[in-house]
């Protein structure tokens, strides 16, 4: 149930994000989800992509700082209280979230969660019948 997310460090310079999307496009790598965390003079792009290992390799070859991080992708109903129910489970088990990003599509929403204790997070979410995406669901979409 662990999904590999790729994280890229970028200096705050114009054209840097375009450079990343260009490399991924050239290698026929699809981006399923993306979020950017920005600090004063740099940012970190986090992406769920098809073929993350290939993405890591090709970006690294271009001298880009890239890292694979383990995250969970959860599917929740797109309705009031949907996210809250999921988060309450984690809180009840004392699991801290480092970051998350989410998007809704139709009657469902997908949430990417990163926690220092990701394996534990996945197991309690599963025990509580939360729907988690598997590798095959997200890769090569």
């Amino acid at each position: 149930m662990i999904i590999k997310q790729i994280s890229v460090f970028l200096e705050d310079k114009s054209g840097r994000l375009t450079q990343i999307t260009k490399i991924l496009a050239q290698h026929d790598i699809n981006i399923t989800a993306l979020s950017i965390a920005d600090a004063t003079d740099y940012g970190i792009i986090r992406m769920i992509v098809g073929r993350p290992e290939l993405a890591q390799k090709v970006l690294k070859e271009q001298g880009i700082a890239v890292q694979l991080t383990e995250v969970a992708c959860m599917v929740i109903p797109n309705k009031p209280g949907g996210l809250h129910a999921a988060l309450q489970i984690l809180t009840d088990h004392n699991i801290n979230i480092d970051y998350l990003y989410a998007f809704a599509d139709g009657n469902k929403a997908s949430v990417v969660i990163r926690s220092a204790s990701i394996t534990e997070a996945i197991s309690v979410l599963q025990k509580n019948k939360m729907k988690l995406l598997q590798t095959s669901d997200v890769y090569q979409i």
Partner: protein
Amino acid sequence: MIWDRKIECASRDEMHKIQSTRLNAMVERIYKHVPFYTKKLDEKGIKPGDITDVSQLQYLPFTEKNDLRDNYPFGLFTVPQEEIVRIHASSGTTGKPTVVGYTKHDIDIWTEVVARSLTMAHIGKHDILQIAYGYGLFTGGLGLHYGAERVGASVIPISGGNTAKQITLLEDFKSTVLACTPSYAAYLGEAIKKNQINPKHIALKTGVFGAEPWTEELRNEIQQLLSIEAFDIYGLSEVIGPGVSMECKHHCGNHIFEDHFIPEIIDPETLEVLPYGEIGELVFTPVSKEAMPLLRYRTRDLTRLHAETCACGRTLVRMEKCLGRSDDMLIIRGVNVFPSQIESILLEIPETSPHYLLIVSREKNLDSLEIQVEIAEAYWSDEIKDLENIRKKISNAVSSILGLTASIKIVEPQSIARSEGKAKRVIDNRKI
């Protein structure tokens, strides 16, 4: 006004005699008491007593900043600790500071040369002198302090920083003299203007500025901003501190108090002594100091000397404004910074690689230092809080060791140029 006419206007012959007598005594002292010099003089086959004339100075060995580091902290002291009454320190080329010591007699010499300096700028008992140089290990604050008391000025030891308070005291105490770094003087001038302080409330007429190189353009700017006459004071802690040389009213170079600090200009490559008028590296022999007299200390400052009698009547040799350095030392807000210091700080921090780039800029007359660093691969994190912690760690280490706040910029790995030879580590955007 001349504080010590007998010395400051002595004939070249008289000065020569004073220097020769003092050099002879100094060589005897250091040969006897400092193993570092015993060895150096033995290597050259020089015995104490051989050196009877100042013209023989050129045969004596040099002392460099690294020698102070190698003998850290007190290895070059000529006298036992009981006789040391003051210790100051400035930046070294690595993490350890450069330490200097003073006996009571040395403090008296220092006070005297600062008294001569201030008198050159017509500062005396009718003046209220605001010392905005840092007090502490840095020689600027305390160095100026005692000389200013000796000429009878009312001294305000406000120390550096705290611009709002500086302005309040300028207005309320009616300070007539400001002593600080030239860049801080300009910054203060801008702040006064910005705060719309009525110039009539400010009584300043003279500025005594030093501890960093400055241009004639900056002098004009400060003079206009603060409506003062600005004087350059030069010094370095290894020689004594501020008061090694000072400008007179004619502003034609700094008069060197050569009865205490014998100047030479050398070619930094061949180490040969160059004649007056030629540009080279300034070397000082602080010949009358007791605690730590150094033989031919290489300042790394590039300038030239002039021996003609000045219009003010002083016969003391004059040095021009420093034209640059023969090493890679930077002076940032009056603090001496060696790129090698920053390198050794980064080497102690496993999260970063020792590849770095220093960018020095001057905005609104205040210097700023940016250190660009790469994060070591093993410490890569995709969480901002981790990267910010690394940044904070570097920033704290730099400020505790250099005494200077630097902004730390994390850059992409491998983005700092690697070169096989001497890497370009510094971009200085200031126009000094």
